[in-house]
């Protein structure tokens, strides 16, 4: 596989007359932590849904892990993990049952499932709640569970859509530690967030405004390029025409 994990070229999605994603072009190198920034409604989630094969692009091309997202969607899915913005696991199952289910769906052996479950739960401090129904858990713990499911099968590329929304600072740090560990192992991580300070944690970021990519590069380079002191300021500058 080449050094490029994600590649998008003029990727576009229209809903009727409304263009949610407007000809975005970018690529993400293997092992990179790539921040996908933008305001609510800027098109981040739509873009991710196209890259994960959940939504068909209106025009343009993209490949993930070397496979075309439109033509070889099912092949793409073998190599990706996904954590959606809205909690999408089963509330009437326990943490362990949710993880086991997805372990099985990703064809992990029983032994792998139990080993990795134990490891992930320990890392995220969920061990004591493993057999509680998800319905009873607070938001932060649910996010941890969703992140576990995304990383469980050690995919090549992981898409995280606002993983840190609504969690406390300690949990946020735990998440980013996990993200770095995954990246160190060679996993490519594309993460969206509207916490702009998290941009500093990424190797490179893109900023989407109104469906387009308004800026793309390493945080330090962008700040220099636009003469701003923080990504926050940069964003405000870009978002307000």
């Amino acid at each position: 596989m080449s050094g490029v994990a994600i590649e998008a070229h003029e990727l576009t999605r229209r809903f009727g007359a409304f263009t949610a994603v407007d000809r975005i072009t970018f690529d993400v190198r293997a092992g990179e932590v790539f921040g996908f920034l933008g305001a609510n409604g800027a098109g981040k989630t739509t873009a991710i849904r196209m890259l994960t094969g959940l939504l068909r692009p209106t025009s343009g091309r993209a490949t993930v892990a070397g496979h075309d997202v439109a033509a070889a969607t099912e092949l793409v899915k073998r190599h990706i993990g996904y954590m959606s913005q809205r909690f999408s696991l089963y509330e009437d199952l326990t943490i362990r049952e949710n993880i086991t289910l997805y372990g099985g769906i990703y064809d992990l052996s029983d032994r792998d499932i139990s080993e990795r479950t134990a490891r992930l739960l320990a890392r995220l401090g969920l061990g004591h709640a493993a057999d509680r129904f998800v319905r009873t858990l607070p938001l932060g713990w649910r996010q941890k569970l969703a992140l576990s499911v995304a990383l469980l099968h050690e995919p090549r590329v992981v898409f995280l859509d606002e993983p840190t929304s609504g969690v406390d600072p300690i949990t946020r740090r735990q998440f980013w530690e996990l993200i770095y560990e995954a990246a160190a192992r060679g996993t490519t991580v594309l993460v969206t967030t509207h916490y702009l300070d998290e941009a500093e944690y990424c190797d490179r970021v893109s900023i989407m405004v109104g469906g387009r990519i308004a800026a793309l590069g390493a945080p330090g380079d962008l700040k220099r390029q636009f003469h701003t002191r923080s990504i926050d300021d940069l964003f405000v500058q870009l978002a307000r025409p």
Partner: protein
Amino acid sequence: MRRILFLARAEVLHVVRDRATLGQVLVVPIVQLLVLANAATFQIRDTPTYVVDLDRSRVSRGLVNRFAASGFFRVIGESASADLANDALLRGDATMTLAIPHDFESSLVRLRSAPILLSVNAEKGSAAGIVQSYAARIVTAYAAELDAARPAVRREPAQVDVRISSWYNPTLDYRHYMVPGILVALVTLIGTLLTAQNIAREKELGTLEQLNVTPITRGQFIAAKMLPFWVLGLVDLAVGLVVGRVVFGIPMRGSLALLFASAAVYLIAALATGLWISTLVETQQQAMFVTFFIMNVYLLMSGLFTPIDSMAPWVAVVSQINPVRHFVAVARAVLVKGAGPAAVARPLAILAVFGAGMLTLAIRQYSKRTT
């Protein structure tokens, strides 16, 4: 594949933990079966009858007594007034009135023939025909009695002797006809409702998305969704049959293995229909509506309650694509008539084709991607 088992196990957990639905799946069908099997009958007993006997002779009283003692009729009132009789019919107090003219006995003696008038409330359509045939039987038997009591008359030899035999259900017990049918109806209803809600619910909750992002194939997905309910349906059927046997004494003349094999095929068709509906709609509410409509049509046009032979021809043709119709036919043939595989081959083949078709439709219709 292993994926199917993992997902199916999760489905089982969902069902088992949903106490309300579980009750509906296990308890409600059996309770309904017990209660309703007694309801679904066209059997005529104790038909309320109003008598106007203007003769009041020994012979006419004899006739009235025969009616009253038959068990099919119950005399609810008597008078000399035809108006009162008519009133009873209008009010619904009587279903039949029996009017005997004042010269009944004397006519029989002189002319060896006498008329009586039966007015039957035919609101009920062919139930009236049944009532009439019972009445005719009583009348004919009484006439024969009177005939035999007369002094010896030159008898004409060689009258055709007609004997009657009612096959498969000599006691004319309606429950033998209905219980298999009701059981099928219940199992179908519950199973299809559950599967119809299933995918729609995951759409509403948002959990479908996480599944769509995995490499699980559509075939595996549908199979996993169906498996637990398929097993559940067969279990329901088995329990229902035991209940039917123990409580209602329904016959089991044919091979139970054949019945369950047919049920296995049938359930695939029924559940796949539910899943297909579920892939078409967005909300559980819509799923319910559509399922309700289809189930209604299936049940009422399946020959379950009213015979297919009685349907208008174009409707009878349409019922050929109704899987319930075919399975009910198989169930009745196997249980009540003791039919073997050869006799039920045709409906079984249709069920297999339908099941395969429905399954393909459900798998095709389910899309892991929004276009």
